[in-house]
């Protein structure tokens, strides 16, 4: 179902033909036939393999490293620790403008100390991965164990053992957002609900493990890094500094990348490592992580403790919210986003899409001996939405209000836009109320079904979650607070060459999103050429001067905007040339589907004929008016766009096993103008699946000794086909945003709404025993313990006979 736009927006000048259609993807034939080219598929002549010996200690001083008989293993060529490469590469420093922040240096191999179990310590280079792994077993590392605090509640305490002594504290991030007088609002409120909410540590689990291949060109003294990254441009820029190589001798290429979801969106130790080893050895050097290494050492996510109190009046209107958040950022602040990315977003987005005057959100980011947290689909907002949507349902239950009604009363309405939240985020032109209505079309029938099931003694519940997110953010705010890299612009270089072929090159880096298809739809529409004549290039730092990649739901907005701008410039040049060739005024020409026609005559030229005349046929265009058919334009949406959604989940909790089945799921979302509905639906399905994983299955567990207990896919559970219900999607295209094209970002949203909706549904299902879910994932074990505790509480509270 698609709700038509309320009004046509003057900013949208497209006359869509391809945009909006369910175009089959250009990427598919190669990926379906096994002809994709992921980093590990690339084999270069003389290529060597690296295996990494990792720390088995959470916090320890490295006393000695003994390589034993490692060199007796055939094929082993070299072994390195931090001292061997210290002079060859500078650490990456994830700087930030935040007050009181400490930037932990990032090195390829641990120097002097290790700070999490799994941190790379020694690298073995061999002619095969098998030989390199054999050598690892020969190496003995002597450690002096150092004290540590593995839980964030302990690590924030003033006397806690320090992980980075130079920082002077484990707390390296502290921020506060405030508006109004929340203490007074809470003190005076008729009802205050509170809780301590936690989405436990999680990891992205892209199906392709991380893989890096560096190749040193002796002749040019140049390095090419092939990397399974979604930020090749950022990696190029930072490694240029670390390796002291200019950008024209350092190329970073992300070929086909097997998913990221944020996990491949930061600089990695091993990415630095292969570069420095390739340069030292003057050979191609490859590292490919196995699953255990990725589960152990890839960036992780979530892991905030959120103490929050919500004040409401007797009609359920939100008065104020007070929150104290401790984010466990792991052992290092990640490059380039810093450890602030995840926890600070939690307090930025906690007020949600609601009208609420008073707010104070305080956040601390604390170092613990675990892998660093970094970007993961939704960043901060899955946790903030979980806490806020739980509080709203808790308030509704106390007031006897329906969960739909309390949201309707508090969601910002179209008339109130632009609306500034208590944390300073500005919501504008987004379908908050319409999404609630869209998700709840079948709500009365579902309530009836739930009540009927309950009458049979079944534990069935319905849950809602409404949220809004900023997507396609321009230069007004950094994607991560205080971070000094530019995330607000993207460039498209479009050229028509002498054969009439169209090449559009970008700084973005598609890794499953289908941008080769969607950007070609935009280019073909804007240029008037044929879809099949457009080649989209991306994922290569050599394509445009600066491009940061694909993350933060930005590529449709920024890449699409840059494509539109560049295509319009090229089109003008094509029409100018055609006007000379056809001897008609330029205004009389239009380009469509690869043909340039004059409205006033039957004259027609193909793009190929115009290109040939411009480039290869001397004298056909006056020499002083001839222009190459190229453009390289940069787009900055400045503010960015707000994407909104409401999710509705229905669940059943098994009375015996406490397993949760999601029986019904609906997403109503406003992602602006849809470029390709097939791709939008695929993104929603996939993001909701990860949200269901976060709600029910996925949890990185470190024990009190700092050891990872979930180091295989048999222990870290992700959803399979039988965990997923069919997902209903309601597209709402309300007032279009002001950015070029009217697109909004939508790749992350499903993961933001689903955990909260499911937590609310489980709480509804268990409301007869008075359980409010405050920790996700809601595993059978957690639910069993909650129910046992609730039974004990009820038995205790029951008056003695």
């Amino acid at each position: 179902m698609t709700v038509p736009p309320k009004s046509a927006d003057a900013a949208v000048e497209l006359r869509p033909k391809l945009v909006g259609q369910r175009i089959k993807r250009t990427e598919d034939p190669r990926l379906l036939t096994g002809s994709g080219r992921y980093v590990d598929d690339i084999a270069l002549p003389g290529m060597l393999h690296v295996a990494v010996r990792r720390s088995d200690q959470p916090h320890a001083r490295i006393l000695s490293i003994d390589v034993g008989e490692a060199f007796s293993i055939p094929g082993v060529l070299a072994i390195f620790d931090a001292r061997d490469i210290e002079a060859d590469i500078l650490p990456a420093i994830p700087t930030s403008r935040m007050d009181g922040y400490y930037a932990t240096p990032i090195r390829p191999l641990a120097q002097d100390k290790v700070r999490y179990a799994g941190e790379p310590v020694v690298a073995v280079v061999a002619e095969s991965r098998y030989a390199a792994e054999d050598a690892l077993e020969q190496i003995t590392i002597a450690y002096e164990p150092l004290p540590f605090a593995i839980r964030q509640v302990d690590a924030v305490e003033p006397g806690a053992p320090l992980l980075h002594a130079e920082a002077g504290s484990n707390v390296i991030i502290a921020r506060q957002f405030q508006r109004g007088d929340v203490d007074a609002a809470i003190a005076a409120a008729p009802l205050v609900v509170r809780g301590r909410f936690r989405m436990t540590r999680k990891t992205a689990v892209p199906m392709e493990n991380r893989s890096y291949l560096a190749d040193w060109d002796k002749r040019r003294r140049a390095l090419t890094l092939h990397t399974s990254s979604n930020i090749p441009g950022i990696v190029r820029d930072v490694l240029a500094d670390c390796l002291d190589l200019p950008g024209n001798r350092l190329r970073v290429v992300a070929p086909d990348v097997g998913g990221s979801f944020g996990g491949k969106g930061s600089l990695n130790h091993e990415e630095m490592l292969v570069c420095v080893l390739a340069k030292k050895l003057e050979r191609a050097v490859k590292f490919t992580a196995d699953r255990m290494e990725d589960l152990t050492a890839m960036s992780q996510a979530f892991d905030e403790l959120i103490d929050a109190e919500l004040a409401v009046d007797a009609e359920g209107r939100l008065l104020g919210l007070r929150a104290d958040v401790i984010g466990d950022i792991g052992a290092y602040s990640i490059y380039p986003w810093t450890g602030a990315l995840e926890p600070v977003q939690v307090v930025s987005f906690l007020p949600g899409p609601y009208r609420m005057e008073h707010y104070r959100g305080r956040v601390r980011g604390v170092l613990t001996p675990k892998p660093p947290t970094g970007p993961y689909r939704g960043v901060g907002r899955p946790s903030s939405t979980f806490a806020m949507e739980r509080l709203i349902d808790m308030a509704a239950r106390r007031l006897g209000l329906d969960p739909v009604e309390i949201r309707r009363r508090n969601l910002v309405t179209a008339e109130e836009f632009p609306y500034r939240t208590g944390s300073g985020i500005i919501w504008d032109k987004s379908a908050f109320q319409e999404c609630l209505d869209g998700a709840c079309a079948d709500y009365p029938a579902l309530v009836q079904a739930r009540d009927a099931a309950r009458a049979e003694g079944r534990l069935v519940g319905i849950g809602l979650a409404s949220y809004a997110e900023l997507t396609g953010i321009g230069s007004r705010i950094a994607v991560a607070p205080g971070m000094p890299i530019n995330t607000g612009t993207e460039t498209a270089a479009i050229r028509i060459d002498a054969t009439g072929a169209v090449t559009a090159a970008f700084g973005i880096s598609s890794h499953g999103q289908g941008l080769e298809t969607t950007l070609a739809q935009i280019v073909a529409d804007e240029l008037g050429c044929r879809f099949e004549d457009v080649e989209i290039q991306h994922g290569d730092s050599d394509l445009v001067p600066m491009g940061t990649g694909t993350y933060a739901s930005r590529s449709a907005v920024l890449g699409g905007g840059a494509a539109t701008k560049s295509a319009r410039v090229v089109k003008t040049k094509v029409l100018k040339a055609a006007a000379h060739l056809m001897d008609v005024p330029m205004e009389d020409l239009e380009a469509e589907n690869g043909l340039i026609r004059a409205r006033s005559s039957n004259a027609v030229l193909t793009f190929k004929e115009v290109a040939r005349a411009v480039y290869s046929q001397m004298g056909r265009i006056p020499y002083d008016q001839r222009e190459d058919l190229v453009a390289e334009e940069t787009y900055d949406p400045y503010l960015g766009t707000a994407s909104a959604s409401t999710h509705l989940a229905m669940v059943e909790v098994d009375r015996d096993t406490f397993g949760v089945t999601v029986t019904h799921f609906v997403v109503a979302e406003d992602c602006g103008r849809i470029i390709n509905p097939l791709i939008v639906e695929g993104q929603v399905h996939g993001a909701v699946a990860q949200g269901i994983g976060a709600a029910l299955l996925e949890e990185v567990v470190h024990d009190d000794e700092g050891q990872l207990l979930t180091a295989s896919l048999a222990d870290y559970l992700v959803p399979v086909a039988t965990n997923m219900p069919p997902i209903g999607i309601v597209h709402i295209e309300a007032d279009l945003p002001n950015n070029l094209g009217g697109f909004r970002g939508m790749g992350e949203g499903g993961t933001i709404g689903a955990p909260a909706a499911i937590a609310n549904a489980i709480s509804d299902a268990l409301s007869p025993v008075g359980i409010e879910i405050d920790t996700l994932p809601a595993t059978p074990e957690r639910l069993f313990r909650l129910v046992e505790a609730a039974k004990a509480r009820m038995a205790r509270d029951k008056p003695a006979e």
Partner: protein
Amino acid sequence: MTARPEITITVNGIAHTRAVDPRLLLSDFLRHELGLTGTHVGCEHGVCGACTILLDGRSARSCLLLAVQLDGAAIETVESLGTLERLGRVQEAFRSHHALQCGFCTPGFLMTITDMLRHHPLESDAEIREALSGNICRCTGYEHIVNAVRELARERGPLK
């Protein structure tokens, strides 16, 4: 050093005779010895299904098999299903239903589904989801894959 036994494995109809290390995984044999990089390795512990191939006609995890144990066996990989110019039927259904995104798990799904279509009724969505439940996809949420398989199962009709 251990002896390197000589084995002959037929892959996609072509017999390959090689001396192999006894510990060489079939997945590495396919990818690195034969250059058939369409078979992907996602976990190397048999959970994710990305490396699924057909062994004598039935789906199997190539990361849990050693090449040395497969002397005389017939293996089919994703490269046997179709070409870029002419996709096979399962591949075409995946494309029209947008049943893949990053493509990394896709070869494993295609091989599993090829086996399931030959041997399982797949009469309901529940059966289809059960048949797919040994393969992990992190991108699609499975719905488009289920849609593709439903179409293929209907087209095939009841099992003979």
